[in-house]
């Protein structure tokens, strides 16, 4: 069995990939995916620690994180879809040029 530090490094890597994506990308959908990567990093952590302690609550937490992730994705995609139909783009920078026409 791999020691828990391996999983921790994996999750740190995922966390930083996600954080970089959120902070550097402008496209809303890519930002959303990066946030999901951070949540997945947390999920990996929970599973690794649940294995370490032989405790089920980490697995429960991990399942709940996945459920919440799906729910949040749903809400966010609805809102992004509404915005895209208005802005004709998922990137706010493109929308800037349109803002005068759209009374926004």
């Amino acid at each position: 069995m791999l020691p828990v530090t391996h999983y921790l490094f994996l999750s740190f890597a995922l966390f930083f990939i996600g954080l970089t994506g959120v902070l550097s990308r402008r496209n809303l959908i890519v930002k959303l995916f990066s946030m999901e990567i951070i949540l997945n990093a947390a999920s990996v952590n929970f599973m690794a620690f649940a294995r370490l302690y032989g405790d089920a609550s980490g697995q429960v937490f991990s399942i709940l994180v996945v459920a919440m992730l799906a729910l949040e994705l749903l809400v966010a995609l609805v809102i992004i879809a509404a915005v895209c139909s208005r802005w004709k783009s998922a990137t706010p920078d493109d929308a800037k040029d349109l803002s005068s026409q759209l009374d926004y």
Partner: protein
Amino acid sequence: MLNHILSAFRTYMHGDGAVLLPEMQLFLFAIGTLAMDSWAANTSSEKPGTNLVFQQNYWNPAIALAGTAFSALTLWMLRARIMQSGDLAGFHLTLVVDSYFVFFSALFLAATALVILLSVNCSTISAVRQGRYFALLLFACMSMMLMVAAVDLVVIFLAMEAVAISAYFLAASPSLSNRTPSAAVKFLFSSALGSALVVYGFSLLYGLSGDTNISQVARALGGRHNVAKVIALSRQSGPQGLQMLQLLQSRLPEAVRWHAFTLEALPIAAFMLVSVGMILKFAVPPFQAEFNHENAETDFGIPSAVILYLSGAFGIAAVALLLRLLFTIFADSQNIWWYIIAGMAIAGISYGGLASLRQTNLERIIVYLSIAQMSYVLLGVVAANEGAATAMTYYLLTYLFTVTGVFGMLITVRDRSTSAGTLNDLRGLRQRSPVTALLLIVFVLSLAGAPPTAGFFGRYFIFHSLLETGHRYIGWFVTVSSLPLAYSYLRIAVYAWRGTKSETESAAVAFGVSEAIVLGICVFVSLAAGLYSEPFTRMARYAFGQ
């Protein structure tokens, strides 16, 4: 058969059910509002204009208000019960009913009731199917109460997400506004990032302790902290250091090579992730930073009542949860993290004050300043003594009512006579309606912390506890960084008092019944708590069971 069901129900209500009863009532009323709404919409579409009895404009808020009233009544009964027989806990020790929960739940219920009253005549909330809006308010209130009741990381996470999802819909619902609210999109993204950071922090806490109950987590972290303290002591020269080194070698030989900081690093990382995530998630900062920055005059495209709810009740909920986590999980390492919190507080106060100077839209000014207001509460965490606990709850209590008063004023003035969107629209308010101008000035002075009002005592208690615990320099920093804040509030007061009105509009400001009730309550609290603060401080002291 029926007897079995009834007795099972009765047992449930005496055990776990009692813990969840106020939330369940809100939930049922929210469902009721939704059902009523769709039913009324169906009947009125068949015979337009005939069904005056079931005018939705009044039925929906009435049901929602009844929900908050019932829930408050149950809360009152629970309060009597915990005074007699101690705190209740249920659902495998994941939810508790203690005085902290009762105080903050009452605050959330009051905030929700006030927002419901303010939304009745609000023209920006479209009259069509507005039952959804009231149901969402009740759902949000219910989730906030759950958030304060939860003492398990899993339940805290679920409640936080429930609050956030209600907030997304409240802020971005297209039926609430005919424009695409870019502020709502920004809010969605910062909030989602915040929840991701918080969950990562929770995963570290779980890894450090092997448990999700926050008191167990606190115990594990406390043990870790004690080991770190012993290691730090054993590095000192002198007899005490030598003694500690011997103790360490006999008890935990491998720890001799460790550095104290590496033991503390992961808890501090978890602390940073949780607190920054919470601030991103609920506090308003990101919410005003919009995609294009030229629009200091335009509003957010979100109804004012919703902005009030987001910047008032949601901010308070976030602070309440953060306080519970700080004072249980991170209580032992307070001497390490108070620097971080003090830095965040001072940064928040200066940012909110300075950024509000550039704005001319009234809603924007007040929302920016609410960042600074919430940062003041964090100063109480820095002091962290008994007086500070009372100061923080007193501050939140009075802040809720004064900020509701200001928003109520803005909603009334804008909806009833003319647009009071920007500072310039306030010109001549005194001539148009002296009462309105006077009320607005009372609220603004209270938020600024001027003496005869509630806001003054809030500040005073917090400063007092800071000085008591010897944080004199922080007091100076805060005083200096509060100057733009005070200027910003006084600017509103001056605009409302001075200047002649333009010739075009001359309508007087009239109050509806619901707005009059809200403003009456708010002005009562913000003056009474300033003139005679004893009952309010007693309420504030109750939150921490003192």
